[in-house]
């Protein structure tokens, strides 16, 4: 297991290297210069000297390979350069917002997994009853409705029913967990709904499959309580595919967060990314994209390792 883990960690490096290279060159294939695009974009009159100065400030006057080298060195030393728009260090811009977005991602995953597993199991055990039909309708809705719209509905609901809106300013969880959760649980619900729907569908079909296995019949023949059969025999096996799914769904989760942060006015990575794109701030864009790719790769690595740890049949 340890050999496998270290091998996978080691294999991550070339992937990250290629991803960083792709991002770097992708953002430089645009016709025209980024600085010209930014300064002359709206037909503004800017002198060549100003353009040259800006170019020098961003290091764009250097040869492409030198820029590439600097980007790579920057990645290793966590120095991603300075934002073209605000002039602050990119690492600073990201650090101030990362906590919120990561917390939101974790909350949304918890909401999605908990709801999805409970609803999926209920749906499978009460197959073809009204409960099952209702849950399946809910899950189909979760896959069809955009998370940002769900977010807007949640705000309307809170406003009309409780005459209350979640707080606008972010409080770190460890300062005041209650204030923190009362702000973040709503966007987490909005994003987690799709997650829950996908998980519930998978859990339903995999529990139905597992319930036909011989060892379930054996357990029943031994006289094991039905509840114990479900929790200890069926669910433990049925939940394995959920682990794989959660890695794949993570991309949707990030996407949902980027859009839903807008609805709830949350100043997270999603907002930073959208602002960066609005301002054509390429230094910031490449860093945020790199960060998201990095998180995606790490999450999928964790998922793979978790899978191996949970399923004794898999040994690397």
């Amino acid at each position: 297991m340890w050999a496998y883990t270290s091998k996978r960690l080691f294999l991550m490096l070339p992937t990250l290297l290629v991803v960083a290279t792709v991002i770097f060159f992708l953002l430089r294939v645009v016709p025209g210069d980024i600085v010209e695009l930014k300064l002359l974009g709206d037909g503004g009159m800017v002198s060549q000297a100003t353009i040259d100065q800006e170019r020098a400030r961003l290091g764009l006057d250097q040869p492409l390979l030198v820029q590439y080298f600097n980007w790579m060195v920057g990645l290793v030393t966590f120095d991603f350069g300075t934002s073209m728009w605000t002039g602050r260090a990119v690492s600073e811009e990201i650090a101030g917002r990362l906590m919120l977005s990561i917390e939101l991602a974790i909350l949304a995953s918890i909401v999605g997994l908990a709801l999805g597993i409970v609803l999926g199991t209920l749906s499978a055990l009460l197959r073809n009853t009204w409960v099952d039909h209702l849950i399946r309708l809910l899950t189909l809705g979760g896959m069809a409705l955009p998370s940002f719209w769900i977010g807007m509905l949640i705000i309307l609901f809170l406003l009309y029913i409780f005459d209350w809106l979640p707080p606008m300013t972010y409080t770190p969880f460890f300062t005041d967990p209650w204030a923190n959760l009362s702000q973040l649980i709503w966007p987490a619900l909005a994003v987690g709904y799709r997650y829950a729907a996908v998980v519930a569908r998978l859990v339903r079909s995999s529990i139905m499959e597992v319930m036909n296995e011989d060892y379930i019949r054996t357990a029943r023949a031994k006289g094991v309580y039905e509840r114990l059969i479900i929790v200890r025999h069926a669910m433990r096996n049925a939940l394995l595919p959920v682990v794989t799914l959660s890695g794949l769904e993570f991309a949707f989760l990030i996407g949902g967060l980027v859009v839903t942060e807008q609805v709830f006015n949350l100043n997270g990575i999603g907002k930073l990314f959208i602002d960066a794109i609005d301002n054509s701030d390429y230094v910031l864009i490449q860093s945020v994209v790199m960060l998201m790719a990095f998180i995606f790769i790490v999450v999928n690595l964790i998922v793979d390792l978790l899978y191996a740890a949970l399923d004794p049949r898999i040994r690397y």
Partner: protein
Amino acid sequence: MLPSTPGSATDAVAASLLPKAAGVERRPRPAWLRFMADEPLGAVGLLVVATLVVVVALARFIAPYDPLEVDFMAMLQAPSAAHIMGTDQMGRDVFSRLLYGGTTALSVGVISAFLGCTLGALIGTASAYFGGKIDLYVQRVNDIVLVFPGIVLAMVIVSLLGRGQVMGLDLNVILAIAIPIVPQVVRVIRSSALTLRELPYIDAARAAGFSHLRIICRHMAPNVMAIYLILLTVNIAQAILLEASLSFLGLGITEPKATWGLMLSGASQYYRDAPWLIIFPGIAIGVTVFAFNLLGDALRDWLDPRLRR
């Protein structure tokens, strides 16, 4: 992985897409009728999709108002007889905008899903056919693209290409939605085309001296057509959702065009007092995506021989 045994669903689809063999005495019921009979939920999906297409195609005759007509005397009006879904912050009729928004959603969704799936299917089939080093390189590139979440990739593409239009079509937005679809389709199509590659008739085609292109297009592609159809349907749903999200963020279709995502983002300052501004576009997105998902699920059940009753 669809075995192409005679009479399997793959052949049924492939046959329905290829010219009919001559001399068939009694014509079997057309495939879509059999599909509707076998899959009631899929039939519902198909009916909803068909209705949407008709309604959207007739938008200019059904819509009571010009979707872009600003009326400052009638701003933010609740639904009434004159405006059945109310008016927005600029006095535009929500119902008319919804109909025209449907045109954008369906055209952008279908075109981008079609582009992404077709390109992905071709690359996937070719990759499996050539195998060896080519296959290896294609897969590595594919894995790299898959590292970027779809919407993030789409946003970067829009910011790189700008929001240019070609002949009234938002080509760059379509590309931005189509490109993230490609690697997902490549992965699925490749794995099922790999099993085809080993079949004797491909060897026979090669021995007959057919060109690579001909073998890929005429001999392999028809046999992955079933999976292609499923992927296409499901990805239309995803593409419509993605277009709504991009437009909502201001990175997709731009004003004054009416799209569901734009209607939602335009309402973000006002919907707390005027909920009709968001209720109807959200339901429109939901129903459309729901119908395509339903259709995709039913197609999968119907075309996958392992699940057949």
